[in-house]
């Protein structure tokens, strides 16, 4: 039999409908792949019994002709989404063995539509990071490896240095790229869907703020957080997003708007569209291969009938510093709930304050402690106006930049997704945290303005590693992103990992 794990979601749905294989066959193929792929540390919890039970239920629904749009499709769930009766940790020691008695809205939508849960995926602790190295579990490894004759290269010209799969949704991107799930849930606060997708040759979309319910997802920065899928291609991402999206009475920031059939937008002509190329994204010291990738992407869209215009988003350079005020400020408030009293880790103390301080010192990792402290400082008396209010004013200006571009007729904006390809575990950020923060330089503006953004692979760097492009759209116009992304995908093809070195 052909390897079922190599099928896209669309192909697997087709095979299930034709009864070429069962949902149980498909799930078993993934469970076997997960076992072989354990050295990638993509999963922090495998749930094979649950997966097989859900697959059996899918087969029963298929037999009765009641299949949902994702019926029988095995998915991985970022460990930031609460799953009823299944341990959810946010990859932090402070949540310990937390077993949610409820299901997040996003995952309940997926199960409503027939999807099967394979397990929980690794991420940076509380989604704070760009390499997935802040997880309390062993760091996930990118299935891609460097090729070439560099110093570290071993037999066959392969450099065995383990590379990061990006972050914070690094377990999701590694698992999708290694075909250890058909698709995965992810979340994006400053780039955590798009940057890991770009570093692994996968497709990730961060929807417009408010498109997807945040209920039941462990909160990091509530005005920036948004969930979305990581998938193997543009069509799969569109199919998954349709299930993610939709109104939710439990999240007052989640909009009551109809959910379009996003997959119908894939392959649509982009003739006559206007694509903006923002000059401020041409940063100093940008690697030649990133510039080349970007130019080639623009050329593809031009050949497909789009008009390219240079645009200016003048406040771009302030997005990242403003983010490092707003996000830690919101995180310091959201993470106040981890106090060792109601759930999770508890360190005994001589009084209640001592209990809080010891519990939080031991339960939170280094990066999380650092961000909580920055957030506490910028919100503290005397500094609130100088930092927090100023950052929120910058956010207004960043959003106005985009509004002006769209008002001038731009339909979508094309940029690189990341400033570099995947880097080695331990290579960045150990001396200066800001070095790691710069990974999100092209993605963070989108969160600050609440807009949708999609990252998709469009080429390889000289070492054979995937590089991604990003498309930024108007609020609630994810359909245009899927149409434009599918044009680039059609021209450049997909970027599956060919060397399955892990087993």
């Amino acid at each position, binding site marked *: 039999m052909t390897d079922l794990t190599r099928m896209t979601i669309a192909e697997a749905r087709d095979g299930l409908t034709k009864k070429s294989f069962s949902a149980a066959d498909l799930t078993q193929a993934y469970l076997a792949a997960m076992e072989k792929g354990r050295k990638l540390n993509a999963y922090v919890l495998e749930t094979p019994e649950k997966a097989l039970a859900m697959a059996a239920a899918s087969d029963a629904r298929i037999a009765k002709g009641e299949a949902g749009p994702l019926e029988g499709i095995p998915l991985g769930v970022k460990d930031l989404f609460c799953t009823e009766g299944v341990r959810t940790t946010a990859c932090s020691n402070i949540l310990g063995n*937390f077993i949610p*008695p409820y299901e997040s809205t996003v995952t309940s939508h997926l199960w409503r539509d027939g999807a099967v849960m394979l397990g929980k995926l690794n991420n940076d602790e509380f989604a704070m990071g760009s390499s997935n190295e802040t997880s309390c579990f062993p760091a996930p490894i990118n299935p891609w490896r460097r090729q070439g004759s560099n110093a570290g290269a071993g037999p066959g010209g392969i450099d065995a240095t383990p590379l990061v799969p990006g972050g914070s949704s690094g377990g999701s991107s590694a698992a999708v790229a290694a075909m250890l799930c058909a698709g995965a849930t992810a979340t994006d606060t400053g780039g955590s869907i798009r940057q890991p997708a770009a570093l692994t040759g996968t497709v990730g979309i961060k929807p*417009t*703020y*408010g498109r997807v319910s945040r209920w039941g997802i462990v909160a990091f920065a509530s*005005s920036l957080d948004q969930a979305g899928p990581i998938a193997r291609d543009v069509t799969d991402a569109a199919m998954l997003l349709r299930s993610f999206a939709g109104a939710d*009475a439990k999240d*007052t920031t989640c*909009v*009551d708007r109809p959910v379009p059939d996003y997959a119908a937008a894939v392959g649509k002509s982009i003739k006559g569209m206007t694509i903006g190329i923002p000059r401020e994204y041409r940063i100093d010291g940008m690697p030649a291969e990133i510039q080349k990738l970007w130019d080639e992407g623009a050329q593809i869209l031009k050949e497909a009938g789009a008009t390219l215009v240079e645009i200016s988003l003048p406040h771009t*350079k*302030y997005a990242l*510093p*403003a983010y*490092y*005020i707003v996000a830690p400020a919101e995180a*310091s408030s959201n993470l106040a709930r981890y106090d*060792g*009293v*109601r*759930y*999770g*880790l*508890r360190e005994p*103390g001589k*009084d*209640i*304050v001592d*209990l*809080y*301080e*010891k519990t*939080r*010192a031991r339960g939170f990792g280094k990066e999380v402690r*650092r961000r*909580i*402290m*920055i*957030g*506490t*400082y910028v919100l*503290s008396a005397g*500094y609130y106006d*100088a*930092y927090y*209010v*100023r*950052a*929120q*004013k*910058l*956010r*207004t*200006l960043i*959003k106005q930049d985009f509004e002006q571009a769209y008002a001038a007729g731009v339909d979508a904006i094309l940029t690189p997704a990341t400033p570099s390809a995947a880097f080695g575990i331990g290579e960045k950020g150990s001396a*200066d*945290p800001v070095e790691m*923060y710069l990974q999100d330089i092209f993605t963070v503006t989108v969160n600050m*303005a*609440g807009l949708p953004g999609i990252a998709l692979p469009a080429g390889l760097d000289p070492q054979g590693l995937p590089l991604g492009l990003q498309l930024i759209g108007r609020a609630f116009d994810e359909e245009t992103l899927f149409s434009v992304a599918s044009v680039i995908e059609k021209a450049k093809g997909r970027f599956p990992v060919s060397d399955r070195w892990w087993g």
Partner: protein
Amino acid sequence: MSVDQATVRRIAHLARIAVTDEEVPHLQGELNAILAFVDQLNEVDVTHVEPMTSVTPMAMKKRQDVVTDGGIPDLIVANAPEREGHFFAVPKVVE
């Protein structure tokens, strides 16, 4: 702006995170690196700019003021590290 060691200790206490004497100089360096990075924002004139309060302008959704959930004390305390019956247990707070 930059922080001194006394400020680092004060922030840590406000954040309810215990810090050791060895950690303080290290944290001071890291926090100052981040604060130096965000200092760029002072280049921008924001005199007549409104701070963002909502990223997508929308009317706040409202729901009926009715009880929609409850009667599940077992579930509420199920994950508590220490509990007595349906109560969370903590060290004595009032003498």
